[in-house]
């Protein structure tokens, strides 16, 4: 355990003492902030119009603003996660510290878990910043808290799966750019794979649809908690961590 914490501290320090973490967070906040602002404005316009006409569908900020915002954020995350995870293994491999780590008494799984938690911490800090937007809504309106809470749980679960994927791809290469592009490709694949499900056969199509990473987020954005999606994200995370382990182990015999 102390070994995991040691690795975690080392990597976390690496993230937060270099400007990269702040640039990633700042970038993410600009993009999601603009989307939030635009969505908020059109939501307010819509509710004013609906109030004037005194008719139609009830105005519900959870459904009409927060849900699309969360869905939107989940897509932005796909683009940001590769930048977070690109350095986790690649940098150590490039600078040669990876070999030191591997020969140290710290086991491979401890390294992997420590590194995963460190990059996941950066991810968590980044996405929780958007919760400030929700606070604005609570100040001037009355959204329902539970669906937002569930939505953020979904974002954290989605992130766990994506960060683990990024870590795995970073463990394959010592080039950070390759790691970032590779992770980006993998996340995109996990995103669009569900579309292919419509064209494939019945069984195969269902498997493809199940693999679609954003499809599982939809229920969270509505405020529905379904163990099906929890299981999906956790198992994707576990498989990716396991693959990372295999990839680190393979350096022993690959030569």
């Amino acid at each position, binding site marked *: 355990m102390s070994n995991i914490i040691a690795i975690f501290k080392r990597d976390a320090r690496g993230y937060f*003492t*270099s*400007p*990269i*973490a*702040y*640039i990633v*967070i*700042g*970038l993410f*906040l*600009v993009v999601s*902030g603009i989307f939030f*602002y635009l969505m*908020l*404005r059109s*939501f*307010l316009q819509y*509710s004013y119009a609906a109030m004037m006409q005194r008719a139609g*569908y*009830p*105005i*519900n*900020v*959870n*459904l009409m*603003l927060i849900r699309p915002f969360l869905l939107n954020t989940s897509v932005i995350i796909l683009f940001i996660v590769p930048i977070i995870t690109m350095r986790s293994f690649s940098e150590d491999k490039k600078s040669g510290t990876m070999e030191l780590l591997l020969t140290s008494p710290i086991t491979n799984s401890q390294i992997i878990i420590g590194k995963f938690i460190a990059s996941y911490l950066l991810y968590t800090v980044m996405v929780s*910043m958007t919760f*400030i*937007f929700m606070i*604005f809504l609570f100040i*001037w*309106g*009355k*959204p*329902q808290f*539970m*669906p937002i809470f569930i939505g953020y749980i979904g974002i954290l679960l989605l992130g766990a799966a994506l960060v683990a994927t990024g870590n795995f791809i970073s463990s394959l290469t010592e080039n950070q750019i390759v790691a970032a592009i590779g992770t980006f490709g993998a996340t995109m694949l996990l995103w669009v794979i569900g579309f292919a499900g419509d064209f*494939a*056969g019945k069984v*195969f199509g269902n498997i493809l649809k*199940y693999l679609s990473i954003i499809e599982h987020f939809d229920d969270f954005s*509505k*405020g*529905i*908690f*379904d*163990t*099906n999606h929890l*299981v*999906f994200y956790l*198992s994707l995370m*576990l*498989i990716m961590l*396991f693959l990372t382990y*295999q990839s680190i*182990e*393979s350096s022993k*015999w*690959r030569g």
Partner: protein
Amino acid sequence: MKFYRWLLITGIGLIFIGLIIYSITNLWDLKTIIPLAIGLGLTIFSLIKLDFTQIIKNRRFQYGSNAIIVILLVVAIVGLLDFFLARHTIRIDTTASKIFSLSDQTRKILKNLDKDVTVLAFVKDINKESVEDLLKEYAHLSKHFKYELIDPDEKPAIAKRHRVKAYGNLVIICNDREEQIDQATEEKITNAIIKVTREEKKKVYFVSGHGEGSITDNERYGFSKAKEAILEQNYEVEDLLLADKDSIPDNASVIVLPGPKKELFEHEKEMLKDYIDRGGSVLLMLDPRPSIGLIEFLKPYGVQVGDDIVIDASGLGRLFGAGPDIPLVANYGSHPIVSEMGNYMTFFPGVRSVRKDEENNDTKIKIVELAKTSPQSYAVKNFEEMYKTGKIKISKDDEKGPIPIAVAVTKNVEKDENKIRDKARLVVVGDSDFATNAYFSNQANGDLFMNMINWLLADEDLISIRPKSPDVRTVNMTPAQVKTVFWLTVIILPAISFIVGVLVYIRRR
């Protein structure tokens, strides 16, 4: 060496292609077998040529294949675990008004669903999301439930095949039965599922043998269009020759008397009375001439059928090419049959008055007047001469409109072993022509007729579900506040992050 290595890769690639083709077509035909066979052959051939034993002895190969096997095993185990856990999910809807939860009735029906039901939703982009949200909840609850969203403009052929009438309509399919609904509400979808999966079809009988219009008659005075409309709702329609029966068939859901021209025999009336008293549903369409003796028959039910003809002097009908003897109706009572008619107009060519008998105070009976003609209409009493000469003459004692021309009656049924329903339902209209082929498609005539039939069918299996709508949760912000949010979210927050980044960078140097 190198050549055989490529051959091996090609072989494995071909096997994959074969498997992919199989997954798409689900057929073991030449298209799948050929690449599979060639791929398998190439793989084996190249492995032999590459000296298989040599490769296996290689340390790297051993480790590599070990790793691959372990990875495949782990993925397979996790996949299987997911598969089993996916069948027993816990699903919690945290929204305040539970908008994403289906009612208990729907849950029960989906749980007992043992036939495949497919829903085709012909929706455009705007409504897509809410429709899909709803259908997704259905699909979650039953593996027999499938749905597909179809853009009717992109795939007009499918829309045409299912005779989709309007954007936003849904077609619910089970085997060869189809049901079309115009709104994606839980109540309508669930009821449509009940209808298409029902074992036995319910029957609507049209009585014949007294010169009534026939359901097989495609001409002006036939009821073939009405028959088509009922068939579309997944009910069967049949002729019923009352005279040679002992009683109304057990599978009858509604009996229609489409304008009898001759008196009914006593035993026929007895049968009808017995059927109504047991909780049956009857639609009586009685023309002014020839007037038959059902007037007495209807008295106990609180229905007063007038011996007159309604003449519309408002001239409104002229706009639609209808003369004064074809009253236009746009004034409806408050009753489920006419609740959705709004301002739609209906025509009644040659109609007599049918009204509530105020003197009848039988507490078991509830009676509602469905439709009234315009205030400028008259119920003309002595119209024999008018029939002969064709001249319209309104006399002073003729009652001035609005004249009621249709009523709906419900009657509580007393305890009875052969009870069909708790309440008998009866609709009496002073005209049969409005539902004939000639007028069925005019204005809202067909809708009115079908509403009557649907109300009379009063399917006990069908359920009612209160529509759910999200609770009102607004945000009120002044433009200045919106601007503040803009500055905070888009400028200040990110700027803080960037500045901290720069400070960290400077400190480290």
